[in-house]
């Protein structure tokens, strides 16, 4: 028995040594945890800002945690245990998902400089600004003009029937009209959500926007969206592996001038340019429903940072948020992703971003379908709906009924 006790004591000593080595906190310094979902150049921009902040502040140290793909999973677990990082990025969900946990930022000096379009996105029902948006995310449809040209499509389609006609021509010319990366259900959901805007809310003559907002929407009308997407697949306008391809497949297809359209974000354009800097790939407006309806773009939050309202170091966290809101820092993060900044006092010189700003000014802009018309939690339903309908596990009719059930359940919860 003595021997066992002896061994156990040794083990405990060894363990406590490991533990002690693991938690060497610097005395006198407040450490702030800053969790970031974004990767690549955006993360680099944040790192740069954090480094200069740490250099300027002797009493505060900001540490970055990048959780990557599992960010949302981990954040939900942390919300469950009410143990959030002091600061974190909200990736489009500041209000819907994190709203209850965020400290209102209305009174911060920088708040008045926010563009109204983006400020409203990050403001909850009570009028609290819950996060600091860094940029305005503009998205539509990624389009390869070289493929359009080679297929004899002279102009980018501006209505859905022109879009179908273009797809037919592209297919006949031997290219893939639309690439869907269905291994990731979010990609399918993104396709449905973009086309839902076109078919259900953005038309002058055929709009259910009010019904969707006040809860009286007749979900049998959603069949039209399902049938439209299914017809794209059935007519062979998509890649063969629309259920199993991954995003790098989309990038390769666009970079090699094999694919014409992808219902994806600016990230796709950046990644395609990495593969082929000369690819003629850019963001295109989503076609309108029918003749007389204008095509449109979607704007929303991409990069935004919030402060945990129960943080032990609230003062320091707010100090960092103010630092982050300085025009040059806002610009740094926004430009890392080639997006326009969220504030009117940040001076844009980059011609590409100026072009995007012009593009916004000249066109109809709307918020994302799910963020605007659907209750929180329905993005997941849309993912299930999209993959189930496309894989044939569920009929369009049953799909609409599932959407209706979740819409009603989640609306009542809210």
């Amino acid at each position: 028995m003595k021997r066992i006790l002896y061994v156990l004591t040794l083990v405990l000593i060894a363990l406590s040594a490991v533990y002690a080595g693991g938690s060497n906190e610097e005395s006198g310094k407040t450490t702030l945890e800053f969790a970031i979902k974004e990767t690549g150049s955006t993360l680099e921009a944040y790192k740069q800002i954090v480094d200069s902040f740490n250099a300027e502040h002797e009493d505060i140290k900001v540490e970055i945690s990048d959780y990557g793909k599992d960010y949302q999973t981990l954040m939900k677990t942390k919300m469950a245990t009410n143990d959030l990082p002091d600061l974190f990025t909200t990736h489009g969900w500041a209000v819907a998902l994190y709203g209850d946990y965020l400290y209102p930022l209305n009174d911060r000096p920088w708040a008045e400089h926010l563009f109204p379009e983006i400020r409203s996105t990050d403001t909850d029902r009570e009028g609290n600004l819950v996060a600091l948006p860094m940029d305005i995310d503009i998205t539509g449809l990624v389009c390869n003009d070289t493929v359009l040209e080679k297929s004899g499509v002279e102009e980018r389609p501006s209505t859905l029937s022109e879009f179908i006609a273009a797809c037919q021509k592209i297919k006949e010319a031997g290219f893939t009209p639309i690439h869907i990366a269905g291994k990731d259900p979010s990609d399918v959901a993104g396709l449905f959500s973009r086309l839902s805007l076109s078919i259900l809310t953005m038309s002058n003559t055929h709009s259910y926007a009010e019904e969707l907002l006040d809860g009286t929407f007749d979900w049998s009308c959603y069949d039209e969206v399902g049938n439209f997407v299914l017809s794209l697949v059935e007519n062979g306008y998509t890649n063969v592996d629309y259920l199993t391809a991954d995003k790098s497949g989309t990038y390769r297809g666009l970079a090699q001038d094999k694919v014409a359209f992808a219902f994806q974000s600016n990230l796709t354009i950046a990644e395609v340019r990495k593969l082929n800097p000369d690819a003629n790939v850019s963001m295109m407006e989503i076609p309108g429903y029918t003749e007389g309806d204008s095509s449109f773009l979607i704007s929303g939050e991409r990069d935004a940072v919030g402060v945990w309202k129960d943080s032990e170091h609230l003062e320091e966290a707010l100090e960092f948020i103010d630092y982050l809101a300085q025009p040059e820092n806002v610009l740094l993060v926004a430009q890392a992703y080639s997006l326009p900044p969220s504030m009117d006092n940040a001076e844009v010189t980059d011609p590409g971003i100026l072009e995007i700003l012009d593009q916004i000014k000249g066109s109809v802009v709307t918020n994302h379908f799910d963020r605007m018309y659907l209750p929180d939690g329905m993005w997941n339903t849309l993912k299930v709906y999209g993959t189930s309908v496309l894989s044939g596990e569920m009929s369009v009719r049953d799909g609409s009924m599932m959407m209706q059930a979740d819409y009603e359940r989640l609306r009542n919860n809210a």
Partner: protein
Amino acid sequence: MRRRRSLYAMALPAVILIIAFVFIPLVSGIRISLTDWNGFSQSSSFVGLRNYINLFQDQRILNSIKNTFYVGIGDTILQCVFGLLYALILNHKFRGRSAIRAIIYLTVMVSSLIMGYIWYFIVQYDNGALNDILAFFGLDPVDWLGNGKRAVNFILCINSMQFVGQAMVIYLAGLQGIPREMYEAPMIDGATPVQTFFRITLPLLKPAIITNITLKLIGGLQMYDLVVALTGGGPGFSSHTISTMINYLYFDSQNAGYSASLGVVLFIMIMSATIIVNKVIRRNEE
């Protein structure tokens, strides 16, 4: 009696660890399974057995249970059979034998997650290595994972291929333990190699077979990493296993209570399966 007590005491450190990190969480899991907790909010309410009743009416859950057992059992059979074949071939001495054994075993050392990503390079429709072979023979490419049943079969085969080396090594160990003299008598009797195999080798390999069945069942029924990397449960929900479904229900569908009830059901199923297998083995021993 004193001897007994001090014997038990030796099991204590391990038992305490297992109780602290396995059983206590398991019990809290049962408590959560009786609520409608969404996984992150501060409040939840008691719903009794509603989660459990819903489980057995949910087509997707039933499918994931079916997949889990299909993969778990199929995996056990494939690896036990092929592992034995490999071991029989590689039990004979020839030059380069240990190199070949090592190569077959090497894949066991690779994380299933990495293996899944590698296999995605192979079975991918566009630029996939398997379709390159088809193209070489002038055949049309196939979207290998595009069909749910086929995707599950791929998961089964890839996992078996990765871990068959482990079964092989255990059989090899078993074969080494069979004394040479055991084969001498039947050789004099003029028995064919096949007869020798079934009369002598197979019965003596029983402990190795039991070890393999146990290890393989465990690996197969816990299938998670490979599915995550290879199919993500798709297309649709057709290739989910119970483990990936638990993860999905908890994190994507924000249904922690429901997710926990699936975990409990899985645990009960496995617990009873273990007891049954153990009983059968013990009966044979008597």
